[in-house]
């Protein structure tokens, strides 16, 4: 190989010979820059290959196969419920991240610092009131959408082989979403929160064998206090966001790979 830099691979020289719009030239320059260092194009090629393997020969959909063009599967609008769950989840995540800047998970004080921080968000913080409202409603709407999504999956028989896995994953997801909601419900540390927490502890303690251990782990003891609040907080803003986001991605990934169940 020659040491001289001028050869077929003089990409920047090649760029100059082309008549590019600013967007195109920025794009190409970036691409070339990255490719020379990270061999991007190899990976793009792999992706492209995979993409065409998946998409190039899309089989005819059911309605096309049976020439049902004039028939509408009247459940189709309900197929958007899973997507709506995802959207509401994203809205809740974004508004929640913003709320997290101002919330203090501290049960000490009278009323508690946690309660005070929520009060501050609602009365003093610019848009704080709207933010909390949006966060709550996004969570409520997500739960509603998830329930309805589950019903649509049931009544369209979409849980049948080979989609059992996604059904089970869905049950894990709906349970975790409820835990998500429950832990969030406790955070304002108001009367409702405290007594809902009390019931949680009692439920945990009523479980045989693992009960006390579970109460210790989840609620930080058998009576509610700072330990409980901080556990709820960590679950709500650290553990569950990662776990649930990953599971939703997996859930939707599986739908993508398997394809939506076709009605008959």
């Amino acid at each position, binding site marked *: *190989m*020659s040491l001289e830099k001028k050869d*077929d691979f003089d990409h920047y020289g090649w760029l100059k010979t082309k008549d590019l719009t600013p967007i195109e030239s920025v794009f190409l320059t970036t691409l070339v820059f990255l490719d020379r260092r990270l061999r991007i194009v190899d990976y793009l090629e792999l992706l492209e290959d995979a993409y065409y393997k998946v*998409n190039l*020969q*899309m*089989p*005819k959909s059911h309605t*096309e196969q*049976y020439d049902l063009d004039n028939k509408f599967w009247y459940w189709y609008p309900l197929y958007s419920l899973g*997507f709506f769950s995802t*959207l*509401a989840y994203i*809205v809740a995540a974004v508004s929640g991240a913003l709320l997290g800047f101002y919330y203090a998970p501290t*049960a000490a004080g*009278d*009323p*508690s610092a946690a*309660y005070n921080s*929520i009060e501050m968000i609602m009365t003093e913080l610019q848009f704080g*009131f*709207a933010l*909390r*409202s*949006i966060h709550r*409603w996004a969570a*409520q709407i997500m*739960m*509603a959408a998830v329930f309805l999504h589950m*019903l649509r999956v*049931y*009544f369209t*028989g979409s*849980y*049948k*082989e080979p*989609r*059992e896995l996604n*059904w*089970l994953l869905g*049950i894990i997801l709906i*349970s975790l979403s*409820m835990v998500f*909601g*429950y832990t969030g419900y406790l955070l*304002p540390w*108001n*009367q*409702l*929160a*405290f007594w809902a927490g009390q*019931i949680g502890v*009692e*439920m945990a303690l*009523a*479980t045989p064998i693992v009960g006390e251990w579970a109460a210790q782990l989840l609620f930080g003891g058998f009576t*509610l206090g700072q330990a409980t609040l901080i556990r709820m907080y960590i679950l709500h803003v650290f553990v569950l966001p990662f776990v649930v986001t990953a599971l939703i991605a997996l859930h939707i990934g599986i739908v993508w790979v398997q394809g939506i169940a*076709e*009605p*008959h």
Partner: protein
Amino acid sequence: MSENETTDDARTDGGETGIVAPDDEVPTWSERKERKAGLSRLTYEYFERSRREDQDLRNESDYVERDVLGFPTWPHEIIRNLSISMFFVGMIVLIAAALPPSLEAPADPSSTPEIILPDWYLYWSFGLLKLNPLNPGLAVLDGGKLLSDQLYGVLANVVVVGAVALLPYLNKGSARRPVEQPFWASIGVGGAVFSITIAALAVQNLIPLPLPLQLNIVFVFPVVAGIITYAVLKTMREGYMYGLNRRYYMLRPPK
């Protein structure tokens, strides 16, 4: 390109190592597989099998493939998705603006409020916890209970969630429309109604009905709803939609 003119001693990149195996010595996949033992060998074998199976299925299939790739992502899909998403997020913001949340009194361990409730989506679970009037007292235990009331409630939750999880293993087959399986559709409607009636049990102290009557409602309404569903779907079977469906099952896809 100056590559071809470069002589060996002018090379600056060290040249080739010269230790690449000649083509006929590179092991084929089958040979590699044979050298393997245990799990990795099984994996190779399975992959080969499943690839062959795919190919056989593809060869046999009279499935119609289309020459159109699909709708273009832009603008069709993106604009549709954006408008749906923006509408949906807009609705969330609108509702949030119209119905802001309240912030109740701060936590006070010394005063139990009259109404203790989780968010509405947990009512069903909370209702199951309140099934204790149905926890049977046993004569042999002098009316004592085998399970504590709380454990009974927790177990009720486990049973419900477990039953839902088992669903795909209980109802198999390729039927999709409710008319094709009136029984399972009625189970579904019964279950959905039960999730509402049991949620009503969670707020029993707000409902001005005697508890025994409420407990009856919890279980009778779902059964009634299920029976009605069953009857309606059975009737619909007589109609043309059902015949249409069945034929599509029987038919192979047209070429």
